[in-house]
């Protein structure tokens, strides 16, 4: 963008581009949306369904 826009004055302080890792607004929006998706809690793809309760453990 700095190649396209030319000011006719010098800024008092250097201007820093704060956009995250060069991501577009759309990409940031999608990233935030993804963070809110998902289930309520984890699922572990394992046959053992209870652990730490010696009486109940089912270990195939």
């Amino acid at each position, binding site marked *: 963008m700095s190649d396209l826009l030319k000011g006719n004055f010098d800024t008092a302080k250097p201007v820093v581009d704060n956009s995250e890792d060069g991501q577009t607004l759309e990409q940031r929006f999608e990233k935030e*949306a993804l963070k809110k998706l998902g289930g*309520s*809690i984890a*699922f572990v793809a394992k046959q053992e369904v209870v*652990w730490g309760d010696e009486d109940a453990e*089912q270990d195939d």
Partner: protein
Amino acid sequence: MDASQAEREPATADSPSLGQQLVAQMGEITRARILDLALANARANLPAIREGQSLKALRDMEIGEGDKAVVIAAGPSLHRKQVAEQLLAADYDGAIIATESSMLYCLRHGIIPDLVVTVDPHPSRIVRWFGDPELTEADLQEDDYFQRQDLDSSFAKALRTNAEIIELLEHYGPQMRIAVSSSSASSVVQRAHQSGMQVYWWNPMYDDPNRQDGITRTLQAENGLPCINAGGNVGSAAWMMANAVLGKKRIAVTGMDLGYYADTPYRNTQYYYEALALAGEERLEEMYMHIYNPHLEQWFYTDPAYLWYRDCFLQMAEHARCATYNCTEGGILFGDPIHFTPLADFLAA
């Protein structure tokens, strides 16, 4: 590929839709979203856990007559199929296990569940099922999650309903048991205690508990609680407890649609705003998967989270030492080894 997978949109095999791509990432996305919060909650709950009872204690109790259990989740079929009325009419005396989200439905119909289950670590949403004494109109304006969905449409009248559930729990709470996950928010734990419910603590599994340096194993060493594979959501956790903790051998699930009736507007789905952000208005359809239920000869549609729940459930059911009957009479949860059957048939058997 099993039969149920084959019924998904034809795009599945070669060019998965956006929604289908997300299903494959749901486990990872869920972990990223909940793990830090769930473990922080577990640490904060440690004093209460040390003073409380473990879920193990339920194994010594006779809960419900016989080997049957009915799990009541809060999907839209719960109302459409009049589950409570059917249970009452049949004089059903087996165990009733309810998700916290269906607690209000049960109590309104005069059913006191034998066990309520809660697991989601969300800091402000889950407490709403218990009645949130701090709830204000500003909160409602900020988060319309409940009002948009058909989980329990009466939450649209949120403040009035909030007062009602507080009153119901004040009255019936002391007669109720609740399996509270260590991941639960302090607001939920506080409400469970305030209302006099008998609290039984447990841990959800986060990874393979046999991993020496794993999260589940470390957590269990810290708080001593049994760890349960919760299957991604509270309904699956309730079903798991019916078998693995209460030892029931014939388990019916109700209100476990894991999807939406075809006439439900997208706006009323759980992740509508997120779907909109990811796909945009023009491609919104790609976020949802349409599934034909051959048992009902009816179409339903679902979102990536619900479809992931279904995949998790089918995996768990395959290894469970019980017969599972889906008596929801709606939705997308079908496939081997689940018996898809009307609730009336289950109750009569």
